[in-house]
């Protein structure tokens, strides 16, 4: 569905010196720096896949997304989305994709969402019957019924985001580009959005490309992640494999009934004190032994086995690439 080969995007931006003298100098002699926002990225995504796009700010995620959507012309390399070149924004390409940006909206501010839905119906030339069916489906899935006739400006951020998603999917695109769709939303709404995206993918088989800073989004939705940093591809593969490679260890966290005695601590090999709990790291195979040890020598009140947080996984991935 999506094929990217040796993609590059180079930007020129003006150099500005601080201070008034610098500003005046920039007025008469502007200087430029070149920056490769995307530098030789390649990947292939199959129909129906849900892929997470990870990376720090300025890594090149949004630039790549914009090139995939057709908003930006790549400096070099090839892109095919649903068999077409995105740039040029042909009608067929635009009918096949949709772009949702968490921090921006296409809904008309002063009018109810239904009006924007109607507008999109006309813009995409949707048949009334098919449109009604899709719209009703989206309204049901997103629970939009009470929101439909209120002006968008009167809706909360979360409510707006749900309506935004509906407006973006009325034309049943094959590919969804989601740029930080849950940004600024409360936890409950984040979960709702994730569940919706999952449901939509199941129903329509749409391919999903998602960028997010919330690891919970990625964990919940994506089986595969593509990690970009400094414009370069750092990792492309199953999320589980990423975790296994960079943070296979489990954390065993023990909370005790009372502070443990020095003798007990000496016996609890591998456990260190952390925020009032005792924590030990162990590869998956060793969990059984460590848990057994803890239960034998410590006055355990509460015990849990955790995976390394995804944030930590990513951090390790990047740390590996950084020169020491």
């Amino acid at each position: 569905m999506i094929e990217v080969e040796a993609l590059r995007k180079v930007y020129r931006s003006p150099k500005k010196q601080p201070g008034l003298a610098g500003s005046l100098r920039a007025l008469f002699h502007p200087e430029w720096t070149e920056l490769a926002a995307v530098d030789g990225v390649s990947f292939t995504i199959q129909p129906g896949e849900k892929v997470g796009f990870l990376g720090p700010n300025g890594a090149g995620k949004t630039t790549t997304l914009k090139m995939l959507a057709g908003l930006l012309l790549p400096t070099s390399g090839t892109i095919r989305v649903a068999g077409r070149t995105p740039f040029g924004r042909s009608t067929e390409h635009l009918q096949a994709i949709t772009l949702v940006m968490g921090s921006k909206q296409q809904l008309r501010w002063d009018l109810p969402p239904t009006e924007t839905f109607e507008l999109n119906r006309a813009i995409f030339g949707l048949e009334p019957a098919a449109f009604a069916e899709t719209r009703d489906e989206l309204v049901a899935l997103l629970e939009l019924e009470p929101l439909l006739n209120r002006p968008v400006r009167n809706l909360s951020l979360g409510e707006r985001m749900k309506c935004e998603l509906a407006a973006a999917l009325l034309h049943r695109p094959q590919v969804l580009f989601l740029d930080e769709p849950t940004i600024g939303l409360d936890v409950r709404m984040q979960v709702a959005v994730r569940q919706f995206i999952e449901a939509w993918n199941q129903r329509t088989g749409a391919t999903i490309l998602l960028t997010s800073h919330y690891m919970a989004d990625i964990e919940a939705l994506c089986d595969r992640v593509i990690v970009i940093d400094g414009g370069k591809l750092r990792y492309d593969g199953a999320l589980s494999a990423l975790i296994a490679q960079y943070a296979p260890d489990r954390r065993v966290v023990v909370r005790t009934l009372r502070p443990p005695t020095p003798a007990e601590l000496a016996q609890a090999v591998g456990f260190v004190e952390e925020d009032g709990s005792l924590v030990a790291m162990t590869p998956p195979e060793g969990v059984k032994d460590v848990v057994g040890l803890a239960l034998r020598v410590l006055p355990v009140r509460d015990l849990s086995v955790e995976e390394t947080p995804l944030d930590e996984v990513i951090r390790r991935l990047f740390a590996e690439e950084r020169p020491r």
Partner: protein
Amino acid sequence: MNRTLGALRAELRLAAMTALAYRASFFGEALLALLTIAWTLLPIFVLYDQRAGIAGWTRDEAMLVNGCFILLEGLMSALIEPNLRAVVEQVRDGTFDFVLMKPVDPQLQVSVHRTSPTRLPHALAGLGVVIWACLQLPKPPELGDIALAGLLLGSGLLILHALFTLVVSTAFWFVRVDNLSYLLTNTLDVGRWPLTFYEGGLRFFLTFVVPIGLMTTWPAMALRGLLSPGEVAMGLAVALGFSLAGRLAWTTALRRYSSASS
């Protein structure tokens, strides 16, 4: 094609609804229309207080030009200004991407998406002035003359659209050009007066380079029965030329926006 027309119709409908959502503006606009007549026509009365004619135009004939100007200005502020000014804001806050993601030509979209019918009272006021002035003329205009004048006003609108497009296209280069549109509307003020009021290089400039004279003086001349169909055809050709130039500027700007050309 059908889809595009349907899309444009839908955009206009939404624009009208948005405009009507602000009730207060509407009455302010009507009041403003009346005041506009006053402030526009007062100078003419003052100017012609002790003279019958200036540069070949009597007071009532100069009123024709003024009326055409107000009419055009009203149409411009309803149909052109708000639409293209919105583009500048969209480019700045990043929502212009949504325009590009719709399968309708972006220039068409932005030409109608914020149409503001609340400004139409202005145009009506202008029309009123034109009609009044026509009635004062020694020889009232014939149907053919009125048709020619209408054509010229239409091509004037096309030229204005092109000028605005040219101006807004620069928004893709200079990030903050909020009020280029104000500059344009202020410059167009020269169109209040008959072209012959201006002399030499300025008149040439206003006839051929930025044909504001064409937009207001020529329709008035048509109503006075002074223009031939050939000259009107020339006016239409100029409008067409400007539209093409506007389109070119727009597509160049879009290429720049997508850094297809840096």
